[in-house]
């Protein structure tokens, strides 16, 4: 049983999806989704422990066929760290989904909703675990196709969800196609799709133009999927018009998985030493990362719709992860992993809290939250803490991210970039404080709908808030795990 865990956590939600589609009756599909995401979370936590105590990668041969003939699932320090992030967020989002889905989606569609919900989660978990480059593409498509459907389900109350989903579909498909073109080139050059195998054989063809072209295609495709500036335009409408539960799940996890896949391919397959990687792609990622940090932050400052505001902020935060990757160093990669983890917590908290408001008044905006600080203090405090974490205030997870990110930049003497990072993170204060002022320093307008909060509304968000604070105070284990994850891809002492 234990040796099958690496595949089981993908298989459970994957096989649960068709079952959920068939289930009728109140809350049956939700119950199944809760059970399966909970199981996936438990399994990934166990895998993290197993991998940590083993100190080396756990390899699972699918169907008993060893690599490079068969497909392998690899639980190394990196995938062991990212798996619980995705499955844990999926679990908490599923807890919150019951209430949010009831409020926002037609009862007849609930079963289908949870089927797509489980599929997208299975797809993300699959991308993280698999050790096969084409298998990554398959899972990427599974998670994307179901995500398009999930976004489109927002159409029940907001017709703009349809064009948003369509845009998302077109650009997502372009990204996936770029990825698979790059993969085709690699297969042509090396004759293998296994990641470890690819890395070995690529060394022989390193100087060919085809191998660099493959790298460029793969990187570009993944930039699109992870919404790196300026390829991020699909993200904001998709997050804003999707059902609130979907916004929370996707904001916390979807782009992170693409970041992870990018790291896995860039560093795990091509390697830091790869011809042209550091100068061309690295520099590109750094530039786009810092540009995205500013673009996202500035767009968030002028935004009034809270879902869009925090979606823009996600663009900025992805920029920081990109900067960590672009630093091309041990600390930089560790910082990217730390921020990947922390940002999932913060954005999960924020979107769950906003979802609780949106489900009541239809749209969470600067207007609808005026004076909300006195009516729903617990929910608004969750937004306050999440916002402080985005700025990077000490004792929140965001501070740890920032410290390691800047440390990585200063170690490489990128002091100008460090200064720009600080400036953009300080600008985050402007959009966070706009919300705080509206919620606490304004009176609730007369005739505005009365907002309510019960544990159902705020417990999921507060789970994430507590994690944000917890990992901001006791970050030691996370930092160690992130360095271990970085060590999978980059040699060198800490």
């Amino acid at each position, binding site marked *: 049983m234990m040796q099958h865990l690496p595949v089981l956590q993908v298989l459970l939600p994957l096989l649960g999806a068709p079952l959920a589609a068939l289930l009728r009756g109140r809350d049956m599909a939700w119950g199944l989704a809760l059970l399966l995401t909970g199981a996936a979370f438990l399994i990934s936590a166990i895998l993290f422990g197993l991998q940590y105590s083993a100190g080396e990668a756990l390899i699972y041969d699918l169907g008993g066929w060893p690599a490079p003939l068969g497909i392998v699932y690899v639980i190394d320090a990196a995938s062991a760290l990212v798996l619980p992030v995705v499955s844990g967020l999926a679990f908490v989002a599923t807890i919150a989904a019951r209430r949010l889905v009831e409020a926002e989606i037609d009862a007849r569609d609930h079963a289908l909703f949870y089927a797509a919900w489980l599929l997208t989660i299975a797809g993300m978990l699959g991308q993280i675990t698999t050790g096969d480059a084409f298998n990554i593409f398959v899972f990427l498509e599974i998670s994307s196709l179901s995500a398009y459907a999930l976004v489109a389900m927002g159409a029940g109350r907001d017709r703009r969800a349809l064009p948003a989903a369509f845009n998302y579909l077109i650009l997502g498909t372009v990204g996936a196609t770029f990825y698979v073109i790059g993969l085709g080139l690699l297969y042509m050059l090396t004759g293998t799709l296994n990641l470890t195998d690819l890395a070995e054989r690529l060394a022989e063809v390193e100087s060919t133009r085809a191998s660099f072209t493959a790298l460029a295609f793969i990187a570009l495709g993944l930039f699109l999927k992870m919404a790196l500036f300026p390829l991020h335009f699909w993200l904001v409408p998709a997050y804003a018009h999707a059902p609130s539960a979907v916004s929370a799940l996707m904001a916390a996890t979807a782009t992170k998985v693409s970041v992870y896949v990018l790291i896995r391919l860039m560093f795990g397959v091509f390697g830091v030493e790869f011809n042209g990687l550091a100068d061309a792609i690295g520099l590109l990622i750094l530039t786009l990362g810092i540009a995205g940090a500013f673009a996202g932050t500035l767009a968030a400052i002028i935004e009034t719709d809270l879902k869009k505001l925090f979606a823009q902020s996600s663009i900025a935060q992805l920029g920081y992860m990109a900067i960590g990757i672009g630093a091309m160093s041990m600390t930089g990669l560790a910082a990217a992993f730390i921020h990947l983890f922390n940002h999932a917590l913060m954005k999960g908290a924020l979107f769950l809290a906003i979802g609780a408001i949106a489900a009541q008044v239809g749209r969470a905006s600067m207007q609808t939250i005026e004076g909300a600080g006195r009516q729903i203090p617990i929910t608004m405090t969750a937004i306050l803490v999440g916002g*402080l974490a985005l*700025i*990077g*205030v*000490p*004792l929140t997870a965001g501070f*740890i991210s*920032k*410290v390691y990110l*800047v*440390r990585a930049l*200063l*170690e490489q003497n990128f002091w100008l970039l*460090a*200064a720009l990072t*600080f*400036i953009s*993170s*300080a600008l985050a*204060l*402007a959009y966070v*404080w706009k919300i705080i*002022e509206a919620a606490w*320093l304004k009176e609730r307008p007369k005739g505005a709908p009365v907002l309510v909060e019960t544990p159902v509304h705020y417990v999921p968000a507060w789970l994430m808030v507590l994690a944000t604070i917890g990992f*901001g*105070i*006791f*970050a*030691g284990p*996370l*930092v*160690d795990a992130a360095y271990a994850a970085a060590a999978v891809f980059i040699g060198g002492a800490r």
Partner: protein
Amino acid sequence: MLIYALLGLPLIASALVLVLHDRPNLRDGQALFIGLITAGCAIQLYAAPHSETVTLFSLAAGLDVSFTPEPLGKLFALVAGVLWPVATLYTIGYMRGAGEKNHTRFMFFYAIAIHAAMGIALSGNLLTLFVFYEILTFSTYPLVTHKGTPEAVQAGRIYLGILVASSVILLLFGVIGVWVLTGTLDFQSGGILAGHIDPFYVPFLLGLFAFGIGKAALMPLHRWLPAAMVAPTPVSALLHAVAVVKAGVFTVLKVAVYVFGIDFLRETGSSDWLVWVASFSILAASIVAMTKTNLKARLAYSTISQLGYIVLGAALATSLAASGAAVHIAAHAAGKITLFFCAGAIYVAHHLTDIKDMNGLGRVMPVTYTAFAFGALSIIGVPPLAGAWSKIMLMGGALDNGHVLVLGVLMVSSLLNLVYLGEIVLRGFFAKPTHGLKSDDVQEAPLSMLLPLCLTAAMSLALFFAIDMFILDFGG
């Protein structure tokens, strides 16, 4: 043990404030009581010969939240600890006298701010200092915007914007820079930077700290302090004397002494530029103060000028000057809190805020005005009041370092202080009354406000004679 007490007591007080929110007398009484215990602990810690490092927890490897009381930190803890109960007593009188709302919220964040100040004072490394520095910023924001008026919200924006932006952009940059350069964040006597950095870059790193510590209100980062004047007067006392700006200049001094090391600064000449920036800040703020007729605004600019003295002491980088700066933290705290207490007393008793309306008021409020005169003379630097010592020590430090021009700056500054503070006293006692009250009607503020301001005025006097206890030796 004392460290835990100093950090924990304000937290306990803030928790009890929330618990006792519907019993105002008990709520305020316990805050006063706990404040007195805190003051006792601060005195005991100051008297204790030395203390060990206490590590509370660790964020990650190399990022400890730990506390090491050293002489400078003990002095700041003493200032904050002793002035807290005095300010609490005053707050109780003011909030009731001026009819402010939301007392519970106010008392809660006031106590949290003291907690943060203690954390800054006793911090054993740069990370701990930064953490509590930010807690102090965010915990004082609700106090600044307490009135909730559009002006208060606007002031809050300036307050938070300048303090957070400067600390997040510059100070944190400096902190992580020191970490990457030296591999440690711990404060050590003699500094930690020597040998780890090309002297060419030291002035720039010093600049990150000097301007990153926005709470030190070094021009041009001073705008938040006058803006925060819209807050109730006890907040001004907290900002100007007990915690906030004192935390700022204390941080500058602590970083200069324990991170850069004053010998290192002097030998490399890295802080010469800061001498002139601080001198500019001293004179320019004094000149602006003279143009203000709103009493609190004038006092605010006076504070900016006085903070320049302490930054100057750090920049002069001699033991005498640094010690003079440390003395000035205490001397200015006692003097300036008296002045603000008096300003609040005038507001509560007569609802006056403009200096031009206060002609002859000294004869109506003789006790308040006498205390005001004590505070003003101490700030000007007239013996036998505390401010005289710090000015003399700073002058001595300037001579040690060959900065003769600084002597002129300090003398001109004293003259300017005399003009803009003396005016208030003279108008109060000798000008023809314009306030419309009969001059023989003595109308003072309530006793709970009068007592604290007499107490702090007496402190200014006592500090002069007990100066031996406050001269710290920084070596070099």
